[in-house]
């Protein structure tokens, strides 16, 4: 046997457990102890599922002892954002309003899939209320702190999930991304994150925010771990009308080969202007490592970002209309005011936004005729301080919360698959987006893997102090 506290990583741990070199129970006990020690400093978790996790770990150990294979994620501890259903638990989605809802009957479909692959759910994780935010400063459940600097934001809205992975509390986490809620916390916490193509993964059993923008995806500290978890999540499900009927297309098996010989370009204009010097430098490091010499502009990006902003507010306002009418005082005030404003938007603006979306989709798909992958900074800056009201963008001081998604929003608006890779080129890390054509998660992951192998991107465990 080896010491579980010294072993990290999804694939490494799963292999050790499958070979009987580590017991799943000892691993879960170790990580639960780490959660008990560090989470009071970070506030990543909204609940710890200790009994359930230990029981599942004992089942994994029993399978190994019986000579059966528990699966590619055998015994690996993971967490889910608080908007994923967990059986017999109320899905609060970072709110107090949802506490009145009935408990979930079962786990969210993709959480159940990774559990069937052997992974062990240890808890639910903090988020912005109803996923409407980029900083995980939750009025009801407190702020999640960045494990690389506890005075700073972990990003959001999947901040608890990202911070837990960065701090080594879980080996991977499952989050959601509507406008950047996987990509922003990946950037701020310095870890890898995948937002797959819209429609790739079923959202069955998760609490919605914007039906035609919501994506699910994983966080991890290595690209092979990210791809392995993503592969376990894939597959059609009837419970989500947006889920595409596509076969599973595993990304992990060819990850070492698929990143070669690709046509790549940097995104210029908006994607340069909205990033600070650190973000531009990180993107240049990635471009250099990939041998990129070409930049392209996407002139429709400013309008696409505005359209995503409008659709999000209007859809969110509509989704929460009844609670806004009867329980307005129970919302986080910042969320409430944004949702109420969204509910008041004229239909003209929303329809125009959907027409902009169509035009932008055509523009970007045209760019993918000549390129396999596009590169851009993930966030306008690295993690701001908690409570920081403004950031500098393109020489102007702007409000922090509505502007952190400037670079992520236009791209999720048209559903592209994107891997965020962490670059440690300053006091805090910052992310770079690896953007592929629809359904080519394998390409984005292979490029990310190549950057990791070259030592450009990495996600070491943070030891919060």
């Amino acid at each position, binding site marked *: 046997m080896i010491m579980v506290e010294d072993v990290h990583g999804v694939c490494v741990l799963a292999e050790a457990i499958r070979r009987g070199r580590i017991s799943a129970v000892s691993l879960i006990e170790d990580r639960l102890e780490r959660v008990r020690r560090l989470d009071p400093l970070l506030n990543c978790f909204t609940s710890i599922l200790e009994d359930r996790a230990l029981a599942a770990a004992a089942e994994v150990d029993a399978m190994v002892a019986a000579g059966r294979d528990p699966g590619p994620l055998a015994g690996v501890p993971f967490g889910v954002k608080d908007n994923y259903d967990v059986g017999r638990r109320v899905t609060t989605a970072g709110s107090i309003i949802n506490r009145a809802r009935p408990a979930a009957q079962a786990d969210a479909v993709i959480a159940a899939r990774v559990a069937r692959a052997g992974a062990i759910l240890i808890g639910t994780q903090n988020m912005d209320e109803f996923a409407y935010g980029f900083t995980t400063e939750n009025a009801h459940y407190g702020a999640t702190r960045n494990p690389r600097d506890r005075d700073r934001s972990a990003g959001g809205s999947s901040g608890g999930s990202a911070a837990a992975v960065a701090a080594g509390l879980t080996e991977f986490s499952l989050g959601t991304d509507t406008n950047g809620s996987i990509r922003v916390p990946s950037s701020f916490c310095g870890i890898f994150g995948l937002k797959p*193509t*819209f*429609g*790739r993964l079923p959202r069955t059993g998760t609490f919605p925010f914007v*039906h*035609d923008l919501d994506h699910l995806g994983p966080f991890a500290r290595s690209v092979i771990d990210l791809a392995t978890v993503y592969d376990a999540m894939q597959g059609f499900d009837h419970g989500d*009308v*947006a889920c*595409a009927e596509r076969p599973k297309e595993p990304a992990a098996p060819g990850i070492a080969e698929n990143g070669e010989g690709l046509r790549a370009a940097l995104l210029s204009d908006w994607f340069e202007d909205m990033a600070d010097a650190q973000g531009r430098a990180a993107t240049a490091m990635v471009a250099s490592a990939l041998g990129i010499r070409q930049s392209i502009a996407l002139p429709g990006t*400013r*309008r696409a970002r*505005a*359209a995503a*902003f*409008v659709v999000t*507010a209007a859809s969110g306002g509509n989704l929460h*209309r009844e609670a*806004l*009418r009867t329980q*307005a*005082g129970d919302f986080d*005030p*910042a969320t*409430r*005011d*944004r949702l*109420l*404003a*969204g*509910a*008041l*938007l*004229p239909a003209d*603006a929303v*329809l*125009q*936004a*959907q*027409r*902009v*979306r*169509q*035009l932008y*989709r055509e523009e970007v798909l045209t760019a993918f005729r000549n390129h396999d992958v596009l590169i851009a900074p993930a966030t306008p800056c690295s993690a701001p301080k908690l409570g920081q009201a403004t950031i500098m963008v393109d020489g102007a001081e702007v409000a922090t919360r*509505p502007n952190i998604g400037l670079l992520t929003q236009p791209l999720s608006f*048209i*559903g*592209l698959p994107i891997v965020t890779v962490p670059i440690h080129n300053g006091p805090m890390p910052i992310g770079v987006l690896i953007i592929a054509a*629809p*359904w080519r998660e394998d390409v984005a992951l292979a490029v990310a893997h190549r950057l990791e192998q070259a030592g450009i991107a990495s996600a070491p465990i943070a030891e919060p102090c």
Partner: protein
Amino acid sequence: MAGLKIDPAHLPGVTNNLRTLIQQAEVLMTPPIAGETEPAATYHA
């Protein structure tokens, strides 16, 4: 509006956010989009 009443205490915050949204909506309107451009299909990547 359609049964949605706003507490007067919430009006300043709602007004600020609505102002931001209208600014973004204005970005959508210029230059004009050709009439034959259909709104995007909702569930399509």
